[in-house]
């Protein structure tokens, strides 16, 4: 069984008697910190109690109680359960909460996201701009009283669809005949769009200007993306350059912001499952996994034994496939056009065949259910998995390593090129292979075991130089460890039912909150779900590793050449579906 996201090992309320109180709402856990003392408590948590990794920051809107709540989850990189603490602010403008960016730098983007979508101001944040929507957008969409243009009803299933089934096109219901919503009396001809000055000012502020240089040079700002072949999707990065050296850099995202949270809060619990597929679209199985264990935690139901193993098998196959693609794409970015990527895609197709056979879809598997999985693995597919795990994949991994690892050009390019050291990585809440390549053996499958990972014998892949070469090699290490887990799982998998529950459309989820996390191939993938006992989640938030890992991008690139930027970005292994959600 999974360990609860937070346990009361640490009595924060006793340490800060007047400031901190225990969260006593039924189904909730953790502590509520007075917002005036938030920074003080957070600093103590980091320095006295060793919670060095801030996992999530997110907001919850409670209009009924006239409160806005900010929820923090912090963990120790030495492993073990984490701590959840909250702070509350009255729901009157301006809603203000002190920023924790100076305690954990990893709060940077997450606080900006909370400001953007919930409208909570983080005082002391140096660069509090909108992050997913554009400047000038009307309103803060995740507030409970904010309605999207195609709003129909608070929760699904919509009455017009079921049981009546006579719905109207969303376009016909909207006054603008489109997915649009303007303030009343809006005159588009008079409208002056906001400029992007703020973005460029934020670059200016953090730039290092050589004071005593004889040569007067000007720095230039280059915008890479959102259409750029090496930004892995629609990421845009504003880079300030001094010659060829990066002096400052800000990622601009939101070009694929598909409103997961808002749509999720309208959906029923089960309806969210296929949406999670589309977060990190390389790894739909891993996304399903995280969401399933979170809701299971809330529902307090066990998972069928056989299903646990199936889950592990699917999650590890996903990881192998992801890392192979990573290697192919990285080499693509380094200039080895296509050949390694074609090799990687060949293996990926074989793994996707298995997904297709069990789930019915190649990429968007939608395979997990609360309490188990949706279909069993047929015998012939099991045989295919065995062949892959025992023969094909190890052989192909060897082959790739033989071709690439000792390659002189590759080594010259990657070796000694610093990515992140342990301190920088932890400070920026970087998780996943990049953290482990910096020498921190933090892998949730070990640090906070979920599912049946505690039954397998495997090593946490870790490397210590934190350079590009280590970041590259660690992917191979992880493939090998995944194959090790797969071998054991295939051997140990018991017969039996694949779901501990009856199949059902509507699950009953008691009121409460849960934070579930899994080690996805990109890092710590977390889901924070608040239930109020209704068929739809009250709050649904995804802690996306790609998004949070990007916090470190500026640290990684500062002082390096612009040509290295492409390779450094590739190291983070981001997927835009997950960055922007």
């Amino acid at each position: 069984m999974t360990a609860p996201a937070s346990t009361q090992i640490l009595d924060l309320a006793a340490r800060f008697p007047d400031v901190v109180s225990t969260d006593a709402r039924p189904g909730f856990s953790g502590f509520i910190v007075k917002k005036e003392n938030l920074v003080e408590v957070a600093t103590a948590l980091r320095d006295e109690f060793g919670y060095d990794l801030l996992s999530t920051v997110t907001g919850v809107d409670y209009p009924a109680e006239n409160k806005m709540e900010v929820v923090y989850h912090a963990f120790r990189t030495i492993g073990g359960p984490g701590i959840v603490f909250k702070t509350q602010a009255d729901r009157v403008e301006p809603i203000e909460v002190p920023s924790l960016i100076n305690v954990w730098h990893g709060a940077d983007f997450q606080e900006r996201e909370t400001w953007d979508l919930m409208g909570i101001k983080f005082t002391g944040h140096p660069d509090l701009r909108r992050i997913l929507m554009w400047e000038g957008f009307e309103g803060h969409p995740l507030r409970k009283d904010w309605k999207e243009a195609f709003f129909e009803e608070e929760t699904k299933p919509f009455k017009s669809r079921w049981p009546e089934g006579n719905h109207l096109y969303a376009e016909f219901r909207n006054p603008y005949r489109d997915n649009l919503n303007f303030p009343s009396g809006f005159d588009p001809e008079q409208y002056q769009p906001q400029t992007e000055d703020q973005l460029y000012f934020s670059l200016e502020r953090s730039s290092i200007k050589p004071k005593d240089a004889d040569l007067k040079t000007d720095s230039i700002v280059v915008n890479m993306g959102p259409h750029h072949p090496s930004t892995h999707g629609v990421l845009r990065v504003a880079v300030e350059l001094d010659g060829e050296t990066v002096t400052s850099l800000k990622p601009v995202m939101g070009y694929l912001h598909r409103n997961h949270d808002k749509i999720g809060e309208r959906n029923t619990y089960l309806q969210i499952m296929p949406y999670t597929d589309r977060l990190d679209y390389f790894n739909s199985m891993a996304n399903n996994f995280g969401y399933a264990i979170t809701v299971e935690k809330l529902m307090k139901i066990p998972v069928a034994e056989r299903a646990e193993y199936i889950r592990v098998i699917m999650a590890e196959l996903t990881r192998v496939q992801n890392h192979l693609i990573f290697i192919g794409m990285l080499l693509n970015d380094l200039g080895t056009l296509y050949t390694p990527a074609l090799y990687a895609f060949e293996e990926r197709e074989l793994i996707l065949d298995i997904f297709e056979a069990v789930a019915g879809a190649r990429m968007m598997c939608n395979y997990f259910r609360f309490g188990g999985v949706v279909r069993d693995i047929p015998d012939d597919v099991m045989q295919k998995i065995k062949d892959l795990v025992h023969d094909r994949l190890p052989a192909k991994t060897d082959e790739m390593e033989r071709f690439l690892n000792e390659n002189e050009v590759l080594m010259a390019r990657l070796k000694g090129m610093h990515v992140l050291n342990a301190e920088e990585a932890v400070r920026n809440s970087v998780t996943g292979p990049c953290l482990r390549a910096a020498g921190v053996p933090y892998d949730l499958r070990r640090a906070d075991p979920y599912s049946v990972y505690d039954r397998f014998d495997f090593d946490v892949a870790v490397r210590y130089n934190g350079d590009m070469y280590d970041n590259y090699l660690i992917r191979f290490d992880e493939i090998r460890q995944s194959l090790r887990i797969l071998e054991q799982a295939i051997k140990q998998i018991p017969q039996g039912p694949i779901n501990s529950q009856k199949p059902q459309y509507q699950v009953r989820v008691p009121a409460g909150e849960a934070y579930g996390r899994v080690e996805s191939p990109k890092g710590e993938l977390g889901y924070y779900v608040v239930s109020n006992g209704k068929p739809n989640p009250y709050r649904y938030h995804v802690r996306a590793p790609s998004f949070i890992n990007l916090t470190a991008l500026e640290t990684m690139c500062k002082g390096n050449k612009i040509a290295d930027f492409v390779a450094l970005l590739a190291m983070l292994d981001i997927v835009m579906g997950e960055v922007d959600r």
Partner: protein
Amino acid sequence: MEENKYEGLNLPNYNIPEDIQNVVSVTTLDRLYNWGRRWSVWPLMFGLACCAIEMIAAQAARYDMARFGMEVMRPTPRQADMMLVSGTVTKKMLPALIRLYNQMPEPKYVVAMGACASSGGPFKEGYNVVAGIDKFLPVDVYIPGCPPTPQALIAGLIKLQEKIDKQSIRKVRWYQKGKADPNYVPMPILGPDLIDVRRNAEYKEAAARKEGAA
């Protein structure tokens, strides 16, 4: 030598002596022109979302889109013939997308790949999602699926080739005389919400009505 029927260049019913069949074809200008274009549709290298991954898979070894002359992905719009809108178009992304489209030289085609590009798909209700790229660009082929499998993608692209086969130089919209660039799409503006400047008057009226009601 067999008749050049696969490439469809030679018109039927012209009997060309056997020894010059590989160098001579009798055909129409349209046919020659379409024949040239249908085998070299260069897509804009441009991935929006999940569908882009299937697009890459279609390029890779198993499906190999190169068989249809569509493998030369061009990162710059100025060299591309076809825009494969492979994923969810968000409001924030739309101005960039339209700018790319406007920069593409004619003849140019748009293929909407997947449910999102065709109609908004699973994310249609999202506040940042454009419910179908056809609200802005003239779409030639829609490919259903979420994501469409590589086979479906290739089938869609073959449909595009068939469409090209039927075109005539005299009638296609980009060679019409006397009209100001009929393909130019004005840039939308990101305001309180997405402003499609072609519909300004409509917005103004609806917003005023809303004010009256409020």
